């Protein structure tokens, strides 16, 4: 439901500001342009999505994802106890976390979606506490090597683009902790319906 509020708020604010600033033509064009760019983005990520779903399938078939799952089980069992009871969900979450740490955002999304789809089965369109936690974990960045940002810094003429790493790690750790804490507090505040 929150997304409904966010969406309505953004569209309505755009209308109001478009009227006030005389940008209404631009806003009207932007609406159509945005919808078009969604298809462009979908097409551009289609190949990557299929590729990493395929790699995940290979990893499942040859036992690599089971090994990965064993590695992450001690940590994930605490965060997502129900999801960890299902081997394949645990494998997908483990792969998702690994891809995030490696900074492979493009690979992390299909793997995380795989886990989310399994976790959402039989819940009638209502996100469980653990599914909320998985999504919050993915909205907070946990990458160890922010290669894209380093390349932007290098492009801006920075001599040591990776010198911000310790700062990125500290800020990431704090933001992930805050997200997990907020999810945990809110899930206890509101009963699961």
């Amino acid at each position, binding site marked *: 439901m929150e997304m409904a509020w966010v969406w309505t708020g953004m569209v309505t604010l755009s209308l109001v500001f478009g009227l006030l600033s005389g940008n209404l033509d631009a806003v009207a064009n932007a609406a159509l342009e945005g919808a078009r760019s*969604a*298809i462009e983005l979908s097409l551009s990520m289609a190949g990557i999505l299929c590729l990493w779903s395929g790699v995940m399938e290979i990893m499942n078939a040859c036992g690599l994802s089971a090994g990965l799952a064993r590695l992450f089980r001690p940590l994930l069992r605490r965060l997502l106890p129900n999801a960890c009871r299902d081997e394949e969900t645990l494998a997908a979450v483990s792969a998702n976390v690994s891809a995030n740490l490696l900074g492979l955002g493009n690979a992390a999304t299909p793997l995380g979606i795989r886990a989310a789809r399994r976790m*959402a089965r039989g819940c009638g369109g209502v996100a469980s506490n653990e599914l*909320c936690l998985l999504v*919050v974990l993915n909205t*907070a*960045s946990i990458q160890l090597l922010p290669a894209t940002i380093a390349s932007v810094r290098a*492009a801006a003429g920075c001599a040591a683009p990776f010198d911000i790493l310790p700062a990125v790690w500290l800020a990431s750790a704090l933001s992930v902790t805050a997200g997990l804490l907020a999810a945990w507090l809110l899930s206890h505040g509101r009963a699961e319906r």
Partner: protein
Amino acid sequence: MNLSSLVIPVLLSAVAVYGLGKRVDVYGALTHGAEEGLTVLLRIVPALVGLLTAVSMFRASGAMEWLSALFAPALGLLGIPPETAPLMLVRPVSGNGALAVASDLMASHGPDSYVGRVAAVMLGSTETTFYTIAVYFGSAGIHKTRHTVPAALAADLTGFAAAALAVRLFFGGG
């Protein structure tokens, strides 16, 4: 050569070699998984159309500039440089937009300035929150997202404040 260019090719070949060593039909598994990727894509498209339409309208309307000006004084209190307000507003909704705003900040303030560094750390310690939420819940068929949005935004806000804090801690300035 960039070290990060090594990750993807090495990963792909390592998985394939290992799988073949285990006598797995690697190619068959790859195409089978890719087929599943397509069905996932079909469920993501509607969510993306909704989200990107609103984001694009919002950016074109000038609301972003107004909100940035509105938030600037409050940011000073949190120790966040007010110059980064547009970045903080774009970051949760558009990855490419945030990259563009951050490059702009680095170009105008210098990549090794306080503002330039904070912008880079902000970019590195947060994600495209609403895009992630739309894609995950869209593909999983979830309508009631419950406490996900407030919790994710709490993480973002902490990440922004922590970025400014961490840069002051490691590099001084501000």
